[in-house]
Structures are given as structure tokens and as C-alpha cells.
């Protein structure tokens, strides 16, 4: 399996997500990460115009992609902004975590839960225009 840099905002043949009408988009999952001990996630909204907010849920799966668990929720509004988060698979988590899928509290993250795949779910409200682009990258180690 490969570690290194991956595109998190890949969707089909596009490497980044153009945000337009309100809606939910699930980007392609990065798989084959069973040996990953940590990952750094870089998210950037290049703001054009319009819109209300864009919530980016960083998700992992512990059951082979059947269900997905939020590990972060980053909220972008109407400005260009970058968010960087680091996750470790070695952080002990000995109290129960109640999983969510697309409903984690805004601008929060939970460490210590990294499955063998990662993806982002993007929920936008309002109508963005002006070629607003969301980019996501991940470096797996």
C-alpha cells in the first residue's frame, strides 16, 4: 500500500470540487490506508462569490466503507480560508465515541479514530458562484 500525498477532493476526473448550488457531495474515498499511523489534512476554500457556508466533514470508515464516521467538521463561509488538521491513529480512545455521519458539531474534530480509508463529505448551503473551489489534500504517514 502507498502512503504519501493524496487528493481528498477528487471527484471523478476532477481533482478539486467546484461549489455551486446547495447540496451534498461525497468525494472519492482514499483507500488502502491500513498501515497509516497519522494523517495531515489540508482543506482550502477558494471563494468566488455568493453562498452561505460550506461544511466539510472529514470521514473515516471502520467497516470497509459500509458506514462512515465523522472525525472533523470544518466550516467555511464566504471568504477564502485554509484549515489544517492532524490526526493520529495512536491516540488512545477508551471512552465510547458515538459516531455521526455528516452531523458532527461545527468546527470540531476527534482524534484517534483512523480506519483504512478517508474521504470528505461536503455540504453546501446557499448558491456559490464565481468558480468557488474547494480543495482537499491529505498526507498519510
Amino acid at each position, binding site marked *: 500500500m*502507498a502512503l*504519501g*500525498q*493524496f*487528493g481528498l477532493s*477528487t471527484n*471523478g*476526473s*476532477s*481533482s*478539486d470540487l*467546484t461549489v455551486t448550488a446547495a447540496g451534498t457531495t461525497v468525494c*472519492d474515498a*482514499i*483507500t488502502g490506508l491500513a498501515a497509516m499511523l497519522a494523517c495531515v489534512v489540508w482543506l*482550502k476554500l*477558494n*471563494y*468566488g*462569490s455568493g453562498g452561505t457556508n460550506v461544511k466539510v466533514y472529514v470521514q473515516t470508515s471502520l467497516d470497509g466503507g459500509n458506514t462512515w464516521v465523522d472525525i472533523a467538521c470544518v466550516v467555511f463561509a464566504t471568504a*477564502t480560508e485554509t484549515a489544517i488538521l492532524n490526526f493520529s491513529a495512536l491516540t488512545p480512545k477508551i471512552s465510547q465515541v458515538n459516531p455521526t455521519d455528516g452531523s458532527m458539531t461545527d468546527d470540531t474534530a476527534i482524534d484517534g479514530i483512523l480506519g483504512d480509508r478517508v474521504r470528505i463529505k461536503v455540504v453546501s448551503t446557499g448558491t456559490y458562484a*464565481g*468558480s*468557488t*473551489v474547494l*480543495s482537499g*489534500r491529505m498526507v498519510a504517514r
Partner: protein
Amino acid sequence: MSVADSISGALTRFGRPMTLRRETLAPGGVKIPLDVEVYGTADGWVPKSLVGSLAQGERMIVISDREIADRQWPGPPQQNDRMQIDGRWVTVVGGVESKYLGPTVLVHILKVTGG
């Protein structure tokens, strides 16, 4: 060792590292790159007459699909993707031909220009 492994190994051994880049245009003309390092061969520089005295080279590039698949880069390469070869940036033009063995992608053959 599979045929795909053999071809990938040969391109790694006898080819050279190149960077394949897909760019997204963001507001303000900002280009957002997503890179993947691949191994391949480049040959066949063909001068092509343009307007006036300008000439532009076209090259045929053969790259392995292995690195693209490993990095889960949004392949296959396509027109207007860029490649860095020997420190120079070139642009993929025309159609990209992918060679398969059954369902397995082995290599991509690209025509590039510029640099």
C-alpha cells in the same frame, strides 16, 4: 510477477521520474495543482512549424499507471494536464491512449508539447 508489475518495473528502471499535474482554476486565476510522480520514457521530439519563426516540440511520453493508481490520482491523464520532464513543463495535447491487459491499465501514451 504480473505483466503490470513487469512493465511498471521496467519503466521505473529504464525510464525517469516525471511529475504529472492536474490543475483546477480558482477565482482570481489561481491554479490549484494536484501532482503525482510517475516514471516513464520520453522521446520523439518533432519540431512543428507555427506562426512566423516559432517552433514547438511534440514528444511522445509513455508512463506507467502504477503510480497513478497507488496515489489514487484522478486518472487517466487528459488533455491540458501538465507534465514536468527534466525540469521543464509541457502540456498534454490530444487524446491519451491507455493500454490494457484485460481490465488492468498498464501504461498511458501521451503526446505533449511545449517546454
